[in-house]
């Protein structure tokens, strides 16, 4: 889908903060100098084409009292699909990727993030995955956050 100038204007606003007003699309439209019906139509079209995944709350696991961490595993080539399926079956898993070092060899290939209601539960889930797969899980929790905020520069691709 080719995004028009109007789509980009809308998308830029949608990824920052969506109005918490009774008529949020009207609020957006007034801000951007467009019609409410046009903003709604374009937003729906972008949602249908998968330009954005969802419009809603971006939940902070930590502030909700939950705990989350990045995990890394060294999975033998022939078992990657099977092990990923085991990992993905956990609802706390939000990301799971097969990764490769470009300029250097690294000891892990499967990387996933997992959250749990508390630390003990996370440790228990890690143990469970280790038992199910017979492989070691390396837990790499965040010790310091310098930046978190997936906002993209919508315009610089022009």
């Amino acid at each position: 889908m080719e995004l028009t100038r109007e789509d980009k204007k809308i998308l830029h606003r949608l990824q920052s903060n969506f109005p918490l007003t009774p008529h949020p699309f009207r609020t957006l439209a007034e801000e951007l100098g467009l019609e409410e019906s046009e903003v709604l139509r374009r937003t729906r079209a972008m949602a249908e084409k998968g330009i954005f995944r969802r419009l809603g709350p971006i939940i902070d696991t930590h502030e909700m009292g939950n705990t989350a961490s990045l995990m890394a595993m060294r999975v033998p080539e022939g078992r990657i699909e099977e092990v990923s399926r085991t990992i993905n079956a956990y609802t706390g898993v939000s990301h799971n990727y097969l990764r490769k070092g470009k300029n250097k060899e690294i000891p892990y290939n499967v990387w996933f993030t997992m959250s749990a209601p508390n630390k003990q539960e996370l440790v228990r889930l890690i143990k469970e995955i280790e038992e199910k797969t017979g492989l070691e899980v390396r837990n790499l929790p965040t010790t310091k956050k310098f930046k978190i905020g997936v906002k993209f520069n919508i315009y610089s691709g022009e």
Partner: protein
Amino acid sequence: MNIEKVVTSKTTDQVDIKLLKHIQDGIPLVERPYKEIGEALGMTEEEVISRIKGLLETKKVRRFAASVAHRKIGINSNAMCVWRVPSDRVEAVGKVMAGFPEVTHCYERPTFPDWPYNLFTMIHGYADGECERVIEEMQEKTGVKDYVILYSEKEFKKTGTRI
């Protein structure tokens, strides 16, 4: 006095949980989404709005917004880059790296005998090779030379944080 609010600010009440579970995969794209959500949950439109505002204030919701599928808008150069930074320089280097607009995430994580890389960065760019160019610049600005670029070869799962 707002004593009750102070006391309960760290805990999330059941109504908030119910609301978050209902909207975590996205609100309806209609003229009055909060009214529709309220009708489904037996709440008024005002209550839905004020609860979302409350969740933003207590930072349980980081943002109320759209999650852009970056690959779909042409951001095709994506990499995770991990750096081996001396522990006494992590603070300074982390701040410099976080200052790059192409860097969306910058975290410190523990090291292990087989894993010496303590600073993790996610980099997103439009043009092919943009990540390498940014990584080159990050190197020059910080003087950190030991790093690995990790490309994702396959995405097995990607959802937002759900409760």
